[in-house]
């Protein structure tokens, strides 16, 4: 594949450019780590109190805060072009649509399943 080694002038001139990437300070990473551990403990502690259905939503809320921390700092989204965040958001929106529409239907027709398992 000799031709793969050839480069046009334009390429050669550009390939020597320096590009600097953003480096997250170590202190930020450690702080995020600490916050994640605290939140993990908090979500466990939350099961000691009875909040009814809110237990689930509280647990999901804490998980979402943790996920956001991981995405923003460990995964760089806070410093990167917002397009990557858009990719992530699209993924989450489509999962949510899938879950919600399927759930909506399953809950609607569940009585027909229930009637048979009881009968």
């Amino acid at each position: 594949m000799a031709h793969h080694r050839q480069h046009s002038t334009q390429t050669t001139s550009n390939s020597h450019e320096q590009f600097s990437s953003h480096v997250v300070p170590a202190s930020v990473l450690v702080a995020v780590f600490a916050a994640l551990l605290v939140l993990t403990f908090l979500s466990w502690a939350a099961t000691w109190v009875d909040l009814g259905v809110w237990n689930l939503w509280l647990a999901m809320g804490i998980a979402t805060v943790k996920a956001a921390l991981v995405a923003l700092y460990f995964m760089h989204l806070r410093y990167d072009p917002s397009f990557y965040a858009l990719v992530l958001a699209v993924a989450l929106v489509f999962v949510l649509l899938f879950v919600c529409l399927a759930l909506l239907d399953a809950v609607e027709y569940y009585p027909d399943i229930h009637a048979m398992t009881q009968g």
Partner: protein
Amino acid sequence: MTEPSAINYLTYPRGLRSWLLTLDHKRIGVMYLASVALALVLGLIFALLMRTELIAPGRTIMGEDTYNRVFTVHGAVMIFLVVIPVIPAVLGNFCLPLMLGAKDVAFPRLNLASLYLWWVGALFFLITLAFGGLDTGWTFYTPYSTTTNTNVLAAVTGVFILGFSSIFTALNFIVSIHTLRPPGMTWRRLPLFLWGLYATGLIQVLATPVLGVTLLLLAVERILGLGIFDSSLGGDPVLFQHFFWFYAHPAVYIVILPGMGIISEVIPVFSRKPIFGYRFIAYSSVAIALIGFLVWGHHMFVAGQSVLASTIFSALTFAVAIPSAVKVFNWLATMYKGSIELAAPMVYALVFLFLFGIGGLTGLFLGTLSVNVPLHNTHFVVAHFHYVIVGGAVMAMLAGLHYWWPKMFGRMYNQTWARLSALLIFVAFNMTFFPLFIMGGRGLVRRYYDYSVFLETNPEFTFYNQLASVGGYLLVAGFVSMALCLISSLWRGRPAPANPWGAPGLEWQSSSPPPPENPPPPVQVGDPYDFSEALLPSGT
């Protein structure tokens, strides 16, 4: 006219090894073309077997279990091996970097891996055929697919692997379009075929993983008894259908969107007029891709889906019909006051317009809640999706293949022969599939080995089926004629000039066939639909 340049991507470097290890998107496209064509032959053989069985009521040439395997394999091969990859992997691979002005796709090795995965997937289909066959229908509905003793595991593995192949191609295209555009190639100047591929890529990366997890669960269900889709273990078979159609409905748009992109390239060039309403066509592709995810439940109106969900899905289904309809109007408006040349690609574009018109309009019947009830699972559905997939996507593919053939292989084919083949395909296609609308409306259920049950009230079904079977033979004859016309051009065709159609697109600026290394993009990228420069073909 000179011979095609001696050093081009087809001739240099030489040797089988240089092909099998190539990272050149053009070669990968050509290898995909050959591979998909072989799979198409396999799928057509099964189609002919099916049509022959149905030529008379009762047993004709095979038993009912064989028939069930034949229609399953026909569907699975055609969907997963042929129509899902055909346009992106063949024409997309060949054209995308050239039209973009890039040296290659963003990840050439991933691109080659995609082809190899396609081969492995195809191998698993052959294994399925050799060991036990498959009789679930291409939809793999549980609990039938978890209880049948045919080789579901091999088939599911094959489809799973093909999913990776599909994702790799799509990922490559999306990243290439984002990051490899040369100066001046703005989103507003992106050729509409690339917009189509971009929208298709979005669907492929969003939907295919859900198919993957569905098949994984199905496989584990069969091996271990996971029970998620098995009602006897507390699972839910309707949930499987939600999972399956979350992929399989958007998959229809994977098939049709790049086809619409091709039509948006062909019609302007052969009308010598800029595309009418570029922005609408471009954005509507993405709109169709995204809204297309919200309509999967229209496959389940009588499947036990709740009335509430069905109503929501029906409304969204009608919403997604609008952008497709408007695209058709935009194509017609592009032809208006043009200077239309009926070359073979344009003939196929017209065939697309008519057949896809019927396919799209009959989709409205099936999306209408009440009308869906007696039409669901009948031959009406079979006719509808063949009009969309064959009449739409495959005709667009043929338009594109005839359009870019001179660029791909450096030869002109015989126009008269190509146009007559298109005409034969058009007539035969309608002969094959239009009777299915009538029989379906009158109640003929799909996947029926024998229609004797209906003959008492509908004696004319025998005639319709004979019509369809003869049409099927003619349709295959049309495909063969089309293929012979193209293949014979490789030896007997006139060498193609760089730009035989006088098209303004970037891909026509390189020689035909292009050199191994794509030419650098021009200093200033122009409008891909600018015909003002009078780019009439020099030698024709």
